[in-house]
């Protein structure tokens, strides 16, 4: 059979399609977006009626996936690492309720923060929830793991986490597919008590989750994904977690070394394998892509010095690994690199020419000029680039939705004018609830929704509230006289600035919806329209 060339993300999607998944739920987020997009664009998925539209945020996505699982079908939910913070409530509790149809959480971490606000490690969440976690090293493993994980999830009646990192999510390789499994029939939970986690039930459920742990450990020990690769040396070994396995093997090839490697890809840790390995090796280097989650765990409080890793300086404490870092850790020899050519300058990302966010920031800079000091709370999306020159417009970008609520808090503290800029997709993700708070509190605040009709930063996915932002704000109780719609264009600049000035002067909650289509999606749409005309 021919291999299919896919990204690691796409391998996860393909594994789900072939394993009889009935639905995938997600909010976009780099580097996880391509999982869901693959299903959306797959003709097989369409033929088999696999549900795949975007959700409003990670929490709604997770809960919907749990509902599908409750009904007996296999479901997947995907997000980037910080998305799991948003979905943490249903996630942790779904380990208490357990599942019916197999439930896979595919979460993609971003060590080195290529496109993220932090490099949190989702394996912590896996331990926190006490569920099985699978961490593939390559695309084939990603496919195979998802394919197997649905049965594992149904066997242990728990959600299973697939933890990816950027380099696997966004790297392509050939994958061999397996035969397709039919989707489950509708088969809702009959022992509904376990889903009603009132304290009386939750205590029972939690106890059974705790009691389940030895079985999960036995599964890990027996897992084909955890295995020992023999080496010539006996006194020095490597424990390589997830994708770090690749770097260990690559670095050993370069250094002509053959150390024993314990490849870890299924958690909880395989206890027996770990103990054997530690008793066989004098020193053990542990490689983890992300936080030193298991290094810390294995060192314990009374560290005996047997372990080398991120916590003793053998490896950098932060950032992603690569073959060079591992080579240095193994040999102590730095590969000499040539000096950076002097003519080379940085090329940071920037807002596209013609982007509507540009006009919003130019207008805001102008109308805020008379106030001297400028505090524009903002949020996450393309418009975060308003932080960079030539705009230097915004003063914050913390987590999705935080612009509205931080501006509200600052307004409550007396900051005037209290202004925030939030994207349309971020607003429906988690800005609307904060706006409700502001309305209820009558906080003097101007919310600018920079509405480009899409979720642009992650590649132009549908924006869940498109066309309904006005009614959403009115429904939340914003006075319609202070919901202003403008089109951020150069030739409407004067009229628009007047609107900004009026609303900044208003001592109450106002919303300015600055609406113009993203130029990227607009040009894609026009191309498509032209193609269908031809």
């Amino acid at each position, binding site marked *: 059979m021919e*291999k299919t*060339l896919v*990204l690691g993300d796409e391998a996860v999607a393909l594994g789900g399609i072939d394993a009889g998944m009935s639905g995938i739920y997600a909010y976009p987020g*780099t*580097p996880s*977006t*391509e999982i869901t997009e693959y299903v959306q664009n797959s003709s097989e998925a369409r033929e088999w009626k696999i549900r795949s539209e975007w959700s409003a945020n990670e929490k709604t996505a997770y809960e919907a996936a749990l509902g599908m699982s409750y009904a007996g079908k296999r479901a997947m939910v995907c997000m980037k690492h910080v998305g799991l913070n948003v979905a943490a409530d249903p996630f942790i509790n779904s380990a208490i309720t357990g599942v019916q149809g197999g439930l896979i959480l595919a979460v993609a971490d971003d060590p080195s923060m*290529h*496109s993220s606000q932090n490099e949190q490690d989702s394996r912590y969440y896996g331990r926190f929830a006490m569920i099985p976690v699978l961490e593939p090293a390559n695309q084939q493993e990603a496919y195979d793991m998802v394919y197997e994980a649905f049965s594992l999830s149904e066997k242990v009646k728990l959600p299973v986490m697939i933890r990816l990192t950027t*380099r*696997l999510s*966004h*790297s*392509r*390789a*050939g994958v061999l597919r397996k035969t397709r499994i039919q989707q489950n029939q509708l088969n809702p939970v009959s022992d509904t008590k376990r889903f009603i986690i009132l304290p009386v039930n939750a205590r029972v459920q939690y106890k059974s989750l705790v009691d389940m742990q030895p079985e999960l450990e036995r599964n890990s020990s027996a897992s084909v994904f955890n295995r020992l690769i023999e080496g010539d040396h006996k006194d020095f070994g490597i424990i390589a977690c997830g*994708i770090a*396995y*690749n*770097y260990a*093997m*690559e*670095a050993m*090839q*370069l250094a002509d070394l053959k150390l024993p490697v314990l490849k870890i890809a299924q958690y909880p840790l395989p206890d027996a394998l770990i103990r054997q390995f530690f008793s066989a090796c004098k020193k053990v280097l542990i490689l983890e892509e992300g936080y030193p989650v298991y290094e810390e765990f294995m060192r314990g409080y009374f560290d005996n010095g047997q372990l080398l890793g991120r916590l003793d300086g053998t490896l950098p404490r932060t950032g992603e690994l*690569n*073959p*060079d870092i591992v*080579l240095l850790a193994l040999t102590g020899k730095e*590969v*000499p*690199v*040539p000096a*950076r*050519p*002097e*003519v*080379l*300058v*940085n*090329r*940071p*990302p*920037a*807002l*596209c020419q013609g982007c509507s966010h540009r006009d919003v920031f130019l207008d805001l800079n102008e109308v805020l000029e008379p106030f001297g000091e400028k505090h524009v709370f903002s949020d996450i999306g*393309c418009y975060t*680039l308003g932080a960079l020159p030539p705009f230097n417009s915004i003063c914050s970008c913390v987590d999705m939705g935080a612009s509205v609520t931080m501006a509200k808090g600052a307004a409550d503290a007396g900051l005037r004018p209290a202004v925030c800029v939030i994207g349309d997709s971020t607003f429906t993700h988690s800005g609307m609830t904060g706006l409700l708070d502001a309305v209820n509190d009558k906080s003097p605040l101007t919310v600018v929704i920079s509405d480009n009709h899409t979720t642009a*930063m*992650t*590649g132009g996915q549908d924006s869940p509230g498109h066309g309904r932002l006005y009614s959403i704000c009115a429904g939340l109780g914003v006075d319609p006289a202070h919901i202003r719609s403008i089109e951020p264009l150069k030739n409407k600049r004067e009229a628009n600035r007047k609107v900004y000035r009026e609303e900044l002067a208003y001592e109450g909650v106002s919303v300015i919806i600055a609406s113009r289509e993203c130029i990227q999606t607009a040009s894609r749409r026009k191309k498509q329209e032209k193609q269908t005309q031809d």
Partner: protein
Amino acid sequence: MKKDIILAGVGGQGILSIAAIIDWAALKSQLQIKQAEVHGMSQRGGAVQSHLRISDSEIFSDLIPQGRADIILSVEPMESLRYLSWLSDEGWVISASDPFKNVPDYPDEELLFHALEALPRKKIIDAVSIARDCGNAKSSNIVMLGAASGFLGIDPEMLKDGIRSFFGRKGEEVVGVNLKAFEAGRTLAERK
């Protein structure tokens, strides 16, 4: 057979199309592939690169180690210099000569080309003007693929099949222009 290739450019310049065609041809040639791409933030006009590894035996790392790349294939001259620390002592730089200036401090062109000319093994190709002559300036990335084709260890006919497969949906004319662009890049690189 083992080739480590760094593809370089600016977000939106089409290095992923080059990668997709090489991937396709390598897969058809029964070779192993790993190709790490950049998605997300930097695609907004920032510097982007892709690590493309082809081999007849198992490839472990998705990333190429420092000093090990056989080729840096860049669709923009300044970007070809960004990843020199990856280039092996025998490695080639194959770069388009068309500057993409979206930063205020873009270097002086004379200094830039001086730095490029000083590289020991390089091919600098006027990709955009060649592509224009072939029918569409947008095919400049395929001119660059053609220019690199002698270095990839893959049968050029297979790469051409890759072009047919990649552009097939867009019709015969687009396929034709791109095949022409490929040949033009290939011939020019051979002559240089």
